């Protein structure tokens, strides 16, 4: 609007270039935020897993709690971790990055511990959780996801310096 008043030749394109946006952005987030680019794919996958683990644990806790309480509480815990990482990835910022990194590490630890326990003492887990057998029922995505998340969260600060 203000641009068009000053031009004599034609219309100035109103759409700002990525560089212009980067210059005007806050000093901490120069280029890509953690929730954009590959990060948006991570947000989508974490969204799917939040819904999958969340709805699964809600159903199990309500309908069949006494069958395998430990499994279902672990399902609920994993759903909470997924939801928390999802929120931190969407919100972005330096503190969210640290929190998301910490939670991805907790998620990885959870997958490894629960996965090992289901192998060592299967009798304690009469019903499956998302993290049983290192996420076998979910094509091992629960194992790959936190590693991918941590790699992405480590990489983004470097990207920002380049941009």
């Amino acid at each position, binding site marked *: 609007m203000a641009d068009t008043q000053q031009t004599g030749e034609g219309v100035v394109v109103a759409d700002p270039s990525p560089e212009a946006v980067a210059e005007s952005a806050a000093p901490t987030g120069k280029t890509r935020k953690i929730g*954009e*680019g*590959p990060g*948006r*794919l991570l*947000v*989508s*996958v974490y*969204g*799917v897993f939040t*819904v*999958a683990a969340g*709805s699964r644990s809600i*159903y199990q806790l309500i*309908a069949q709690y006494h069958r395998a309480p430990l499994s279902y509480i672990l399902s609920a815990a994993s759903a909470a971790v997924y939801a928390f990482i999802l929120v931190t990835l969407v919100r972005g910022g330096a503190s969210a990055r640290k929190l998301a990194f910490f939670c991805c590490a907790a998620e990885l630890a959870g997958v490894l511990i629960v996965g090992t326990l289901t192998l060592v003492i299967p009798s304690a887990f009469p019903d499956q959780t998302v993290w049983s057998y290192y996420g076998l029922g979910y*094509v091992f995505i629960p194992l790959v996801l936190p590693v991918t998340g941590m790699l992405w969260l480590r990489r983004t600060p470097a990207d920002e310096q380049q941009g």
Partner: protein
Amino acid sequence: MIGALTAVVAVAALLLAAWCGVAIARDQPTKDWHLIGMAVVSVLALAQLVVGIVEVANGHKAQNGTVIFFAYLVGATLVVPGAAFMSLLERTRWGSAIATVGGVVLAALELRLIEIWGSGHG
């Protein structure tokens, strides 16, 4: 009845995933035609939800329980529209990656739906 429709949705979802996979390889965002494809798959999934409701209303019982059956049907209906929305937010190759993941997730949900519905009901 629902078994055939579920197979159609699964194949369509995999085709969508492969098609958007080509866009990833070409470093392109999803374009109008991809979104039309996602709309077609979404309509198929919606038809599946309607057929599922009709079949359960007519007295068929899902093998693993009606609640789980409908949870998966609703999830299957929402996953591709959700992927389309995210791919519109992300106008890079990563938006195409989201659409590809959406197609694969839908195909996986369809496999589970066949198990949940039970083979005896066709």
